[in-house]
C-alpha cells in the first residue's frame, strides 16, 4: 500500500505518456453569508492525450467549479482559486496574466456548458458567434473566417450551414444549439474540450447524437482530450476511459471506467451505483439508498466529507480526513478502509 499526497493515477495502458494537463492540490473557495466555503479542496489529477476523462458528482461536489478553475472562469468575487497549480504546456494556468489566459481560452482549452438555451448570446447571429472565436485567435480575413465557420457548422451536423449563419440562436432547437456551441468551441482546434453537463438539458435521443458527435470530433484530432463533467453515471460509462468521483469538494475515487463500474471501492461510489435502478436484470423491488441529503457546502462535516451518510463509517472518519490510497490495481481511493489493504 502506498499513501501519496499528490496522487498520479495514470491510465494503465499509457502510463509513460506525458500528461496534457496536470492539476495539483487545487483549492477554490467562495465567500458566502455563512463564511468562507471550500468548494474544491486539494484536487489533483492528470489528463492524458487522447483520453476522455469523466468527473462525476452530485450538486455541490465541486466538479463544475474544478472545470471553471481550469478555464480561470471562477466568478471573482465571490470565488477565488486559493491554492494549487494547473500545469498546461509547461506553464501554470493559475499564475497566467489575463492576456496570456485569453490565448488559452477557446484556442487551446475550450468549454461547452449545460444550457444551450442560455449559453449563446440571443441578440447575435450564430455565424457571428462562431466567427468571433476564429477572429479572436487567428489573423484571418472575415470571409475566410466565414468559410471556416460554415465548414465547422457542417462538421457538427447543421444542415444548410451557410444559409443558417444569419439565424439567431432562438431559431434553433435545443440539440442544434448545443451543436452550435460545440462548433464555436472547437473551431480553433483546441486540444482539450471541457464539457460541463453537455447533454443534461437534452432529450435522450438528442443526447445520444451529441455524445456521438463529441467523440467523433475528438477522434478526428489526434491526441486531443475531453473532460466530461456530469452527474449521470450512465453517460460516463458509455463515453469515458477514466473516471473521477467527487463528493464535498474532494476527489473520492479515481479509476478506469471498468474499475469504477465493476469494482468500485469507495462506499460513496458503491452507493451511487447501487442506487441506480437496474435495467439489465430482473426488477428489484426496492432501490438501494444512500441515507440523508447532500450537505450544503458550509455544513460539510469534519473528517471525511461522506461520513454522515456512509454505511461503512468508523469512528475516525468523523475526526480525521482520510488520505488518498493507491491500490495495486491503480485505483485511487480516499477512505480509511483501505489503509490496511494491500
Amino acid at each position, binding site marked *: 500500500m502506498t499513501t501519496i499526497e499528490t496522487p498520479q493515477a495514470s491510465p494503465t495502458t499509457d502510463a509513460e505518456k506525458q500528461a496534457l494537463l496536470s492539476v495539483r492540490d487545487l483549492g477554490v473557495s467562495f465567500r458566502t453569508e455563512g463564511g468562507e466555503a471550500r468548494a474544491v479542496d486539494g484536487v489533483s489529477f492528470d489528463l492524458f492525450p487522447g483520453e476522455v476523462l469523466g468527473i462525476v458528482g452530485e450538486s455541490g461536489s465541486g466538479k463544475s467549479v474544478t472545470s471553471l478553475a481550469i478555464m480561470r472562469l471562477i466568478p471573482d468575487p465571490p470565488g477565488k482559486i486559493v491554492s494549487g497549480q494547473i500545469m498546461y504546456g509547461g506553464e501554470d494556468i493559475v499564475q497566467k496574466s489575463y492576456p496570456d489566459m485569453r490565448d488559452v481560452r477557446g484556442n487551446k482549452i475550450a468549454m461547452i456548458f449545460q444550457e444551450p438555451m442560455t449559453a449563446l448570446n440571443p441578440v447575435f447571429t450564430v455565424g457571428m458567434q462562431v466567427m468571433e472565436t476564429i477572429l479572436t485567435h487567428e489573423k484571418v480575413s472575415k470571409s475566410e473566417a466565414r468559410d471556416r465557420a460554415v465548414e465547422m457548422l457542417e462538421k457538427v451536423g447543421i444542415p444548410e450551414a451557410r444559409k443558417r449563419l444569419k439565424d439567431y440562436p432562438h431559431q434553433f432547437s435545443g440539440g442544434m444549439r448545443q451543436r452550435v456551441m460545440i462548433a464555436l468551441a472547437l473551431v480553433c482546434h483546441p486540444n482539450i474540450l471541457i464539457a460541463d453537463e453537455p447533454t443534461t438539458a437534452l432529450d435522450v435521443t438528442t443526447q445520444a*447524437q451529441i455524445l456521438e458527435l463529441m467523440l467523433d470530433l475528438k477522434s478526428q484530432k489526434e491526441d486531443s482530450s475531453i473532460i466530461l463533467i456530469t452527474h449521470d453515471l450512465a453517460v460516463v460509462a*458509455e463515453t469515458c476511459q477514466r473516471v473521477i468521483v467527487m463528493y464535498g469538494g474532494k476527489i473520492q475515487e479515481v479509476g478506469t471506467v471498468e474499475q469504477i463500474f465493476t469494482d468500485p471501492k469507495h462506499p460513496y461510489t458503491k452507493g451511487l451505483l447501487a442506487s441506480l435502478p437496474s435495467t439489465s436484470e430482473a*426488477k428489484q423491488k426496492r432501490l438501494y439508498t444512500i441515507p440523508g*441529503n447532500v450537505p450544503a457546502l458550509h455544513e460539510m462535516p469534519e473528517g471525511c466529507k461522506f461520513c454522515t451518510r456512509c454505511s461503512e463509517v468508523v469512528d475516525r472518519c468523523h475526526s480525521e480526513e482520510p488520505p488518498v490510497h493507491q491500490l495495486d490495481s491503480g485505483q485511487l481511493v480516499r477512505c480509511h478502509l483501505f489503509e490496511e489493504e494491500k
Partner: protein
Amino acid sequence: MAEPLLEVRNLTVRFPIWGGVLRHKVAEVRAVDDVSLTLYKGETLGLVGESGCGKTTAAKAICNILKDTAPGVIEQGEILFHGKGEPVNLLELSRGDMRPYRQLIQMIFQDPFSSLNPRMTVREIIERPLIVHTDMTADARRNRVHELLEKVGLQAAYDTRYPHEFSGGQRQRIGIARSLAARPQLIIADEPVSALDVSVQSQVINLLQDLQDEFDLTFLFVAHDLSVVYHISDRIAVMYLGNMVEIGDAETVYRQPQHPYSQALLSAVPQPNPSKTREDRIKLKGEIPSPLNKPKGCGFHPRCPLAIDACSKDVPQLAEKESGQLAACPVT
C-alpha cells in the same frame, strides 16, 4: 388489478395559434391527439416520451387543470373517473362539481423549488388541501400534518419552517406530503425525480412505492428517464408527437419494444455498464419535428428506419403485437 380507476378515451387537446391582422386562428397544434388509456386501481402507469410529445399536457388534462395553466382546448374525448362508484366524465364537470374529484386526483410536480409557495410554512402548505377539502378542526389538521411529515421521512418539528430551508429532496418530500394530505386515490407525478441528485432520487422513488402500498394509490408517472420509469411502472405508455405509439406491460415494452420509436428511444438510453457496446445502437436521423409541422400519417415516418409507403398516408392505429403489448406500427 383489472378494476379501472380512470379511463381516458380519444382525448385530443389542441393549442390554437393566433395571427394576422384580425387575429384569426392561423394554425393549431395538436399536443395530444386521440389518446386513450386506462389506469387500473393500484397500478403505476409510466408515461414516457421526449419534449413536445404531449405527456405533460395529457397529465394536466387528466387533472382537469389545463384550462387554468395553458390555453389548451380539449377538442374531444372523455376522462372517466371510477373513484366514486359510477364512472363520471371529469371533462363535463363544472368547477364546483369538480372539487370533490380534485381531492381524489393529486399532482406532484417536477421542480421542488418553484412548486412550493416560498412565503408559506411547511404546515400551511400541507394544511391547505385539508382546509379546502375537509372540515377537520385545527388540532386535527396539525396532527395530520405531523403524521404526513413523518410518513414522508421528515421530522414533525419541521412544520414551522419555510421551503427555502430544505434541500431539493426534502422539498420534494414536502410536495409529496401535500399531495397525500387529502387522501387521494390517483397521483399524477410529472417528472418527480428528474431535478434531484442521484443519491436522493432512489430515496424518493422508494418513498413513492412505499406510500403506494400503504395507501393503495394509483400512479400516473410521467418522466423522460426510462430506467426510472421501467423500475417503478407496472405498465409503460410511449408517446411521440401527441400520439400514443405503444402501451403495454413494463417488462414487455422495455425488453421487446415493438414500435420503431420505442426501440430507438430505449436504445438511446445510456447504460451504467461500460462493457456494453454502443455499436448496436439505433441511430435516429434528424430531430423531433415541431408539433406545428407534424408529418402526415405516422408522425415518426420521416425518421423511421422501417418506414414503408403506407406510413406517410394513414395514421397507424394501436394493435396488439405477438409479445402482448399494443403498438401503432403496421410494419413490426
